[in-house]
């Protein structure tokens, strides 16, 4: 038999291999000879014949059967992605697999990490153990004290504890479990903050659905009730719900209620979140609510073994709730009953390399293929999504009020920095507001979306500026570490002691970054406890959860943070959000800049006053009267969306057209443009429905020593654009491109 195998290579083709053994299912991993090496592949087709001559067909070296094959539904989804994003099937497939499954060896299935007493084990009496079996007794007693133990914890009890564990497992007293029992307590909206009291599980009671229920389940607002009722009333079929809820309106509670309904029907739920950082918090809320079916997380920060284990648990149907970042959208879920995409507008759902897919869009397709509902949640939906809801393709569910009764949306005020003198980027009114909060024992967040100390190092004597040698960006000074770093290519060097151009020692730091704002605040508010939260301070594993806990526990007065903190977090005592200059986006050449700015400011503003204390937002800007700010002040997303959509319609931008971008890069711009011009010539008259623009340099022209440009094509018809791309891609592959690397980006978000 001939196995047609997809390999992780940039060629849009399958490879034929012969196999003499027993039948092989589609989706099975195989090891095959490929050139001088061996490669792992996935069987995409099984057939009797090949177009190749028999003597040119090599044999499959090995069929891996230690895990079940990739299920048909995922195969179908990946085929769709390969077609729609015009990306080779092999690469598309391998992009979706955990790294462990991309290796050319059999999978070593990860060992269980956690163990707990089984029902039988709980009945076992330590007194029945022989008196000399001290270690066994200790282990049994220890397991009775706690929910579960880690393998290492057991090993730490005694050198012979692992043997005792093995004996217990053989007796059926101990079973493996996937997660550690007790999660650290996390304040939830209705609980008394930060107590280290009994775990939610102990507090819980058995609810009607058989799930253990947390007694702290908040009552629903009428709008939440309506949303839950509507979604839960249509769980049998494909529907796209847009859950548009203002910040603090309790979207998560709606998710939890719909998840509960799906679990009761025996379905699996896939929850996608934009960032790894948001998973622990959401995970805890899910775990507290559904202790019997704790969520498994899938994101790229997991170790290879953990990720494989969770992936397989999802595929086997054992995991009922899978919570992950964009890559989790490809997780096999045999009983999929619902998909939730939280913060659906977030750009991190779009992968910006390799297979450039949008996990939100793929989630919608997946829901459609599986005929299950999908809920897209956001306070500031993507205009594409909003437009779909307006057009009736998606159903809009609105949560117009904050969920905590009495919590009003924060008041937004602007500080005109054109008129005021700033102290290292901070205005007097903002400082006064910070002092007021500190005096009242409330917390504040100063939001500045630039990490590091200062975005530019310059020489005041000769005008030299710290430009990156390999990018069109500037090197950002990180003063604490005394490094200059490029945030685009990763260049990292010592801050020079003297100007490289004229030798002046007294170099100047221009502009504001989180480190500088932190330092300034430490100087101006000497008694305040200030905490900086950005990607640098959160780099160490577990650093972020520790910092979040500090904030929750009220150990911090002022948080200086980047977008890392803008989303999802619920700090009850936080009543003031100050935004350092956000004007850059107002004059960006990117037509989505305004949409992103609005979403970001709305989101960060939403951190203020989520509980009983009223919130206030102070935004420093040179353009306090800008229409975007006016809409923001009214908390008027629909109004803002309407004006943006009117502009988009006028300019013929998405969502009123469909776009694809041919991105190309090479060491020299000349070559890039030459290639793109040749690509533009490959358009035939038959492609009348498609507009091909001129090659244009990218907004960031140089990144990591490569010069970048692109060619935009668009069409009012998605089908016409797709048909065009299919042919065009083939013609592009035939083009001589030498030093030029190119990729197609369908539905591009960045230019």
């Amino acid at each position, binding site marked *: 038999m001939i196995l047609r195998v997809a390999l992780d290579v940039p060629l849009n083709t399958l490879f034929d291999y012969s196999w003499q053994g027993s039948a092989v299912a589609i989706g099975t991993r195989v090891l095959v000879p490929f050139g001088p090496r061996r490669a792992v592949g996935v069987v995409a087709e099984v057939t009797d014949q090949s177009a190749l001559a028999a003597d040119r067909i090599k044999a499959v070296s090995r069929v891996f059967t230690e895990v079940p094959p990739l299920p048909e539904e995922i195969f179908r989804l990946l085929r769709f992605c390969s077609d729609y994003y015009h990306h080779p099937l092999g690469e598309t497939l391998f992009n979706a697999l955990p790294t462990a499954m991309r290796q050319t060896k059999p999978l070593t299935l990860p060992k269980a990490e956690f163990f707990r007493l089984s029902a039988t084990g709980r009945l076992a009496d330590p007194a029945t153990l022989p008196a000399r079996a001290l270690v066994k007794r200790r282990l049994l007693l220890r397991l009775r004290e706690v929910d579960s133990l880690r393998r290492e914890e057991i090993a730490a009890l005694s050198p012979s504890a692992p043997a005792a564990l093995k004996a217990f497992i053989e007796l059926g007293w101990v079973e493996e479990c996937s997660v550690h029992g007790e999660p650290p307590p996390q304040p939830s909206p209705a609980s008394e903050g930060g107590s280290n009291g009994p775990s939610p599980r102990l507090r819980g009671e058995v609810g009607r659905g058989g799930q253990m229920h947390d007694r702290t389940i908040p009552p629903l607002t009428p709008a939440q009730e309506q949303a839950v009722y509507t979604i839960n009333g249509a769980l049998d079929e494909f529907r796209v719900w847009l859950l548009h809820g203002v910040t603090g309106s309790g979207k998560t509670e709606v998710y939890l209620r719909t998840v509960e309904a799906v679990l009761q029907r025996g379905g699996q739920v896939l929850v996608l979140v934009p960032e790894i950082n948001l998973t622990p918090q959401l995970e805890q809320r899910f775990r507290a609510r559904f202790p019997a079916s704790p969520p498994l997380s899938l994101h790229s920060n997991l170790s290879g073994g953990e990720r494989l284990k969770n992936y397989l648990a999802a595929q086997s149907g054992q995991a009922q709730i899978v919570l992950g970042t964009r890559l989790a959208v490809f997780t096999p879920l045999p009983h999929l009953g619902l998909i939730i995409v939280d913060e659906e507008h977030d750009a991190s759902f779009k992968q910006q390399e390799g297979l450039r897919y949008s996990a939100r869009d793929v989630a919608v397709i997946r829901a459609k293929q599986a005929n299950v509902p999908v809920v897209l949640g956001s306070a500031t939906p993507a205009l594409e999504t909003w437009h779909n809801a307006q057009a009736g393709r998606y159903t809009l569910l609105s949560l117009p009020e904050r969920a905590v009764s009495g919590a009003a949306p924060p008041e937004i005020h602007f500080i005109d920095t054109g008129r005021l003198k700033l102290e290292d980027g901070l205005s007097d009114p903002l400082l006064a507001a910070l002092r007021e909060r500190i005096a009242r024992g409330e917390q504040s967040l100063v939001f500045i979306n630039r990490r590091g100390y200062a975005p530019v190092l310059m020489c*005041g*004597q000769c005008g030299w500026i710290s430009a990156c040698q390999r990018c069109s960006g500037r090197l950002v000074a990180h003063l604490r570490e*005394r490094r200059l770093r490029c945030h685009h290519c990763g260049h990292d060097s010592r*801050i*020079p002691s*003297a100007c490289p151009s004229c030798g002046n*020692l*007294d*170099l100047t730091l221009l502009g504001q970054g989180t480190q500088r704002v932190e330092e300034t605040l430490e100087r101006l508010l000497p008694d305040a406890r200030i905490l900086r939260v950005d990607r640098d301070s959160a780099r160490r594993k577990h650093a972020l959860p520790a910092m979040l806990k500090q904030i929750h526990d009220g150990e911090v007065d002022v948080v200086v943070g980047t977008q890392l903190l803008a989303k999802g977090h619920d700090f009850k005592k936080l009543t003031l959000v100050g935004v350092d200059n956000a004007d850059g986006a107002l004059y960006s050449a990117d037509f989505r800049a305004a949409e992103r700015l609005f979403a970001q400011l709305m989101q960060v503003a939403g951190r203020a006053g989520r509980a009983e204390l009223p919130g206030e937002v102070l935004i420093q800007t040179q353009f306090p009267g800008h229409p975007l700010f006016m809409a923001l002040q009214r908390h008027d997303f629909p109004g803002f969306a309407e004006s943006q959509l009117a502009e988009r319609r006028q300019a013929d931008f998405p969502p009123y057209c469909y776009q694809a971008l041919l991105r190309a890069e090479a060491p020299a711009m000349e070559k890039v443009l030459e290639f793109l011009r040749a690509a533009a010539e490959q358009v035939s008259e038959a492609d009348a429905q498609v507009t091909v623009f001129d090659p244009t340099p990218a907004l960031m022209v140089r990144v990591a020593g490569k010069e970048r440009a692109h060619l935009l094509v668009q069409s009012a018809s998605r089908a016409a654009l797709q048909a065009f791309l299919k042919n065009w891609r083939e013609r592009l592959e035939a083009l001589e491109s030498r030093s030029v690397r190119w990729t197609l980006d369908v539905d591009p978000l960045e230019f």
Partner: protein
Amino acid sequence: MSGEVIEIGVLRHTPAGLPVLNVRVAHVSEQVEAGSKRQVQCAVPVIMIGEPAKAGLKLKIGDRVSLQGFLSRRGLNSPQLVLHVNKIELIEEEG
């Protein structure tokens, strides 16, 4: 040049971590110009970086110092001259 310290700034550091101290020194002397004696009075902005800045930290207002160094403009858009100090010597402590 020599003179009396009349202003001492706050110690700061260059981005690379070198200490920097800005001071002002008032210079008063008698000089000969075209064969005739005359009074000279001026106040000079002084910048000390590195070792001189550390030495400068010990200065008090009113100290008399002798300074060696060079002149440079304050900045790209400022033609004002600043004395960069390489060597600093205390001639007489204040009071």
